[in-house]
């Protein structure tokens, strides 16, 4: 099986059209289950944007996706498909939680960076083996990281259950003690779950931007993802690039796990991630693996999640509907032949072309 992943640019119109398709199919599913799509979508919209609490909720759910999205995007740009962000997140979360619990007497300004460091290392470590197998033996990172996702969940459960279980719990719920006060993220908006992890997430998006657009490594990553043969010929060590992106990707995903612990759960909890990893991958794909795209993609997915939760609370439509819509959107984003048929592009392309002409002085 050939899992060669070549980076191809995605246009805005593709994302927009795909979203429309997703919404329509979601609507059809709602009709099938005897609900009024317009009403449900209204609830969804309200749940995501309706009031201060809705917006806070949307942002809360965006935070983890900023990390997994950036992690996925970096890997994608380098031509690697890191499906293992979920597992790397778990390892990062556990490492972060433990650092948060057992280091005492520190100020937040020291404690939180330490936790970030620990979780980054944990996530990086979890990505190391798949990276090595790919670079040495060309073993598909898709298969290896996927398997390690399952292992990660079981492993962290095991470690917590037998070594770090919370006092007072008898192995029924697998959780650790709470982290120290110095390890907790301050809240950004009073009485909501929105925490300062958002700022760290945005920071990572900015770092991603500088990495990809301004640094030498970023250039090598981009080219390796588009055409590794060309990169090799030009003197780039594609192996080094691939290893780097996987490790960076793992590190970022790990930090994402720790941020969730520091901001929301304040402890490590088994199965704490409702598919943050996959959602991050989808957010990145939706955004064309660019920094601004990942940001928007994460916002989109986060809002969708917040809205879906509200829908589930106030109607009997399951939140899994949002998951379905997300998957459908990505299918359409990827369907190039279909997307090529939409004439909307002419208008958008003309707009872009005019912009570019201003930048060049070569008449054509």
């Amino acid at each position: 099986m050939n899992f060669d992943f070549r980076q191809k640019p995605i246009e805005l119109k593709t994302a927009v059209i795909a979203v429309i398709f997703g919404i329509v199919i979601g609507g059809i599913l709602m009709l099938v289950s005897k609900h009024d799509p317009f009403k449900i979508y209204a609830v969804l919209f309200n749940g995501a944007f309706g009031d201060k609490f809705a917006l806070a909720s949307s942002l809360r759910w965006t935070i983890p996706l900023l990390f997994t999205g950036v992690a996925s995007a970096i890997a994608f740009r380098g031509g690697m498909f890191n499906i293992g962000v979920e597992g790397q997140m778990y390892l990062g979360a556990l490492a972060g939680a433990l650092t948060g619990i057992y280091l005492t007497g520190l100020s937040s300004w020291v404690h939180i960076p330490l936790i970030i460091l620990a979780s980054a290392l944990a996530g990086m470590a979890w990505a190391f083996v798949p990276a090595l197998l790919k670079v040495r033996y060309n073993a598909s990172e898709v298969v290896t990281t996927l398997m390690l996702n399952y292992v990660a969940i079981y492993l962290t459960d095991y470690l917590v259950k037998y070594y770090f279980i919370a006092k007072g719990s008898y192995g029924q719920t697998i959780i650790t003690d709470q982290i120290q006060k110095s390890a907790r993220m301050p809240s950004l908006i009073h009485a909501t779950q929105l925490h300062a992890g958002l700022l760290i997430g945005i920071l990572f998006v900015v770092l991603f931007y500088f990495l990809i657009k301004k640094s030498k490594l970023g250039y090598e990553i981009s080219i390796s993802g588009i055409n590794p043969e060309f990169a090799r010929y030009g003197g780039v060590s594609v192996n080094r690039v691939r290893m780097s992106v996987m490790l960076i990707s793992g590190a970022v995903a790990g930090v994402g796990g720790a941020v969730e612990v520091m901001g929301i759960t304040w402890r490590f909890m088994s199965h704490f991630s409702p598919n943050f990893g996959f959602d991050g991958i989808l957010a990145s794909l939706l955004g064309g693996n660019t920094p601004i795209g990942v940001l928007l993609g994460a916002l989109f997915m986060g809002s969708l999640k917040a809205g879906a939760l509200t829908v589930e609370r106030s109607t009997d439509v399951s939140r899994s509907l949002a998951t379905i819509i997300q998957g459908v959107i990505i299918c359409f984003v990827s369907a190039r032949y279909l997307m090529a048929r939409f004439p909307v592009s002419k208008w958008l392309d003309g707009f872009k072309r005019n912009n570019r002409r201003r930048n060049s002085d070569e008449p054509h």
Partner: protein
Amino acid sequence: MSLIDASILAVIIRVTAPILLATIGALFSEKAGVPNITLEPAMLLGAFFGVFGSYYTGSSVLGAVSAVAAGLLVALIFALFTLKWGGDEIVVGVAINVIMGGLTIFLLKIIFHTSGSFMSPEIIGFPQLDIPLLDRIPVLKYLFAGQTWVVYFAFLSVWIAHVLLYKTPFGMKIIACGENPLAAATVGVNVYRIRLYALLITGGLCGLAGSQISLGFLSMFSENMTAGRGFIAVAAVIFARAVPVRVLFISLLFGLAEALSNQLQLLKFPSELVLMLPYLLVVLFLVIQPDRFRWKKWKSAGAVSESGA
């Protein structure tokens, strides 16, 4: 209870069956040259619709039929977005995984009005068959008693796949599409259609595999009950280099791992460590025998000769 007695054979055969079916299914996609990671969702949807069909018709056979239909549906959707509309196989594959995970939960809610899992005495599971005479042989009797017809079919499918692939024109076309699509095209083979058929076979078999999971031992459906077996099948088929007989042995190996993990759990081994086994096994394979995973370029025509352009 001792750790291992002969009765574990029954367990091994039983848990191997879904993996075997899925891997044999994966064989066809792999041979045809389509990277296919929609095995897991096909199995999951098949498991769900197996229960659905059996519940509403009172017949486990019709349950199996609807499971196969579900698998075919997944394959059709995958084929539509990739073959027809040019989507990337891995991206669409991941997306379909996400979709079906959500869809099963969604359907669970609106059809059965429940979440987590669904059980009911009205779900008719596959009947457990005892083969007369063979079920008296000491030790081996465990292979022939208490299994479902799907299990036997799973093992039969190895032979069917072998014949189909190597001895029929259809199989030859599949191989051609996978190794040299340009060659196939110039001989008048409709590569697109052959790949579609291969994908459908994969989907159907995975759907059936799913029904074995939900109807073959316990009669119920629970969220994510396929637990990554579809991905193990992906790894297995690559590792077996898409040869039916090898697939049989690799699947048995995974079945053994799963059976052992079940057994160990009963013995109060930490269940988490034990559940990890099959997945670690895959990674271990990759570490030990890495050259099994050298990828060929499946899209390019490629001259057969080494020299020349």
